[in-house]
């Protein structure tokens, strides 16, 4: 038991049989941080990719490295290799200087692919933060998917109504409405946890499915928000042109990268600041580490449970709103049913170890994986995209599975350290 001493006291919850160590999410984070920086997530990812490669090799006999290379190229990440090879002509002189990217370079395949990856990066990061924030308060928010859906529903509704509103105001209204709806949706689980102690995992799972069916109801044939002009298609109205987010890189007609990407970046910063530099964040983390101690220290545990869930929901609702306003512009019942963004968010938060930088990087990994294996981007000569899409799920599942085994990795590391200490002595 000696290797767990710091967390041991923290893991004890009232009513728990004595002598058992049950680490909560926050204590697990502490373990992670002691288990060593980037090393463990990298190892986890490599192992998952290695097993995925074995599956490719065994089932299709294709070279997994070639497959992964094709996926990498499909994701557009190879664009970064070209950075610096562009030149910008200085006006009124004949000279040109090196510049990170070519603003005219819409057509480069790598740029197009990278735009797709970054478009996906936004919701992955935001739903990842939705999971991570609740984690830091000792809760597991599985409901990112539901919060994402209600945010998208609200955004598409606000975005397609109210013609004549100035563009910026309309966008702001739709984004805020989507984020707030996500907050309310997650807040239900938060209130239930705070008042009657209902386990947030169960309630958020239920809320996910309720959100899904509400979406199918609203946009289904004859539903209240179904398209006004196409009565036979189960799809929402298109949002108005004024409420579409500006595309700042790439061709708006070819689904370029929208300004929501900056919101994603800002959300990472907000996440870090609010957790590490505000009273709210301090209280949230205190509750996450040990609710009993926090209560003893005068922190209202119930209030923080509710707030943490609501803030989580805000992130996920924001993801839904940005997806609608940035590139989807409409939503159909099939989107509602097959979307897995919120679930990827769980993998992102777990792999990113609930830190801002980690979530940003893990989001990029999974976004690249999704884009690289999509039917549009993967070269079918090298690997069938339908197979590769499932390979993505497989790798995601393995990553989540291995990330969960942190205690094992920690004990292995500790074992090695102890051996070394014994050897030194």
């Amino acid at each position, binding site marked *: 038991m000696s290797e767990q001493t710091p967390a041991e006291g923290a893991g004890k919850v009232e009513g728990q049989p004595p002598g058992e160590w049950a680490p909560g999410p926050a204590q697990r984070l502490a373990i992670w941080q002691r288990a060593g920086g980037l090393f463990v997530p990298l190892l986890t990812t490599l192992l998952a990719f290695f097993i995925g490669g074995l599956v490719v090799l065994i089932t299709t006999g294709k070279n997994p490295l070639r497959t992964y290379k094709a996926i990498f190229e499909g994701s557009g990440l190879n664009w970064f290799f070209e950075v610096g090879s562009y030149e910008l002509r200085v006006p009124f002189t004949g000279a040109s200087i090196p510049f990170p990217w070519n603003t005219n370079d819409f057509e480069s395949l790598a740029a197009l692919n990278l735009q797709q990856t970054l478009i996906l990066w936004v919701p992955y990061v935001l739903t990842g933060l939705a999971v991570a924030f609740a984690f830091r308060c000792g809760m597991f928010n599985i409901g990112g998917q539901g919060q994402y859906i209600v945010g998208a529903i609200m955004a598409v509704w606000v975005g397609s109504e109210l013609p004549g509103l100035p563009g910026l105001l309309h966008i702001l209204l739709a984004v805020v409405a989507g984020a707030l709806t996500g907050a309310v949706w997650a807040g239900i689980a938060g209130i*239930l946890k705070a008042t009657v102690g209902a386990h947030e995992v*169960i309630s958020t799972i239920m809320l996910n499915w309720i959100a899904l069916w*509400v979406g199918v*109801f609203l946009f289904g044939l004859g539903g209240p928000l179904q398209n006004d002009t196409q009565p036979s298609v189960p799809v929402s109205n298109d949002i108005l042109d004024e409420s579409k987010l500006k595309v700042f890189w790439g061709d708006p007609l070819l689904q370029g990268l929208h300004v929501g990407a900056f919101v994603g970046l800002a959300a990472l910063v907000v996440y870090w600041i609010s957790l590490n530099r505000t009273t709210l964040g301090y209280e949230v983390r205190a509750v996450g580490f040990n609710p009993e101690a926090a209560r003893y220290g005068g922190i209202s545990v119930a209030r923080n449970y509710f707030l943490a869930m609501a803030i989580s929901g805000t992130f996920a609702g924001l993801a839904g709103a940005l997806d609608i306003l940035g590139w989807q512009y409409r939503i159909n019942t099939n989107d509602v049913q097959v979307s897995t963004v919120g679930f990827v968010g769980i993998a992102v938060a777990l792999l990113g170890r609930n830190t801002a930088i980690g979530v940003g990087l893990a989001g990029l990994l999974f976004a690249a994986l999704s884009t690289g294996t999509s039917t549009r981007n993967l070269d079918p000569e090298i690997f069938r995209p339908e197979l590769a899409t499932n390979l993505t799920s497989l790798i995601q599942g393995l990553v989540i*599975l291995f990330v969960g085994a942190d205690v094992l990795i920690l004990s292995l590391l500790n074992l090695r350290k102890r051996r070394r200490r014994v050897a030194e002595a």
Partner: protein
Amino acid sequence: MIERVLRRLPKGARAVAWLGVLVGVFAFWVALPPLHIRNPVVPILIGLVALALGVYAVTRRAGRPAWGAIVAAVAGAGLGYLATRSSISNLDQVVVWSALLAAMLRFATPLAFAAMGGIFSERSGVVNIGLEGMMLSGAFFGILAADKLDSWVLGLLAAAIAGGLMALIHAFFAIHLRADQIVSGFAINVLALGLTGYLFIDIYGGEGTPPNVDRIPNVHLGFLQDWYFIGPILGQLNLMIWLAFFTILLTWIVFFKTPIGLRIRAVGEHPRAAETVGISVYATRYAAVTLSGVLAALGGAYISIGFVNSFNQNMTVGRGYIALAAVIFGSWRPFGAAAAALLFGFSSALAQRLPAYSESAAVLFQSLPYVLTLIAVAGVIGRSIPPAAVGRPYKKQ
């Protein structure tokens, strides 16, 4: 024997509460075929009677059934009123009792299998969010083996093995590696989704599973065929539906009538105490979790080779989560979970037929299981209280 049954029946205020529930349901029923009462006063009056019974029971602190009576009274009267306003032809089209109940059994069977599995796992102290993935594995490997080996028996066997292996992964991470049980269960779902989808595309490609897969047979009960009402429901059921009834009964017997069940419950409530008296916590949990995977996979196999006769990517579409909801709604009890599975199955059956009224609104019935479970965990009508040690990794000493 009869005396023993009578002794178990609710008494006093609880009996009044249950009577209120029945009267509330009756208020709705009178307005439906075959009775077809068209006067809206009748269901409302009956509903008021049920409400009175419910209020009486609430004041006498009869707990969950009392609140259930009030809900049943309001819902029964309201729905009964709506039914009297609706056209008879629509009613006749939607409410075909024998077809509705047969469909309910079909929808409830996979849920019941997985829910029994969930009870085994959770009662032993291991949260099993992975039911969905285990069901999906069962559905795929069941049809794969039934197709390639041309035998539904081997199909079921393969499903059970696949589900058991999936559960074993969950068990290894949750028990030995003391991983967060929710994380590893969730990982199983994602993993199963990827694995079955991958193999499905790899083996069957775009064409899908062949139409002539050997399927689980229906049980023809010739002597029942002509019975009024019961015949059309029970006369032609799939073998797996009967097996589901059997499994529910067996689960109850194992849990409450055998030492094995006592051990599983002890491990789930207080593992340290269980270990002190010589029960192996690890072995019990491994066995319970593996069994839960086997049962969930059988439910999945019923979907693919008993019900639909084909496989599609992610074909269980959340049934594992509904089963989980049934476990919680049924308070981790076999009969409670089975009743919840039937209720959820009924709501699916109804959702399938309601489009006669409104295509879009019928869909909302699909969310009924989740809403009810949310209400149940919220404790509005009696709290569902999980086993004490569920979700807590155990460290041997």
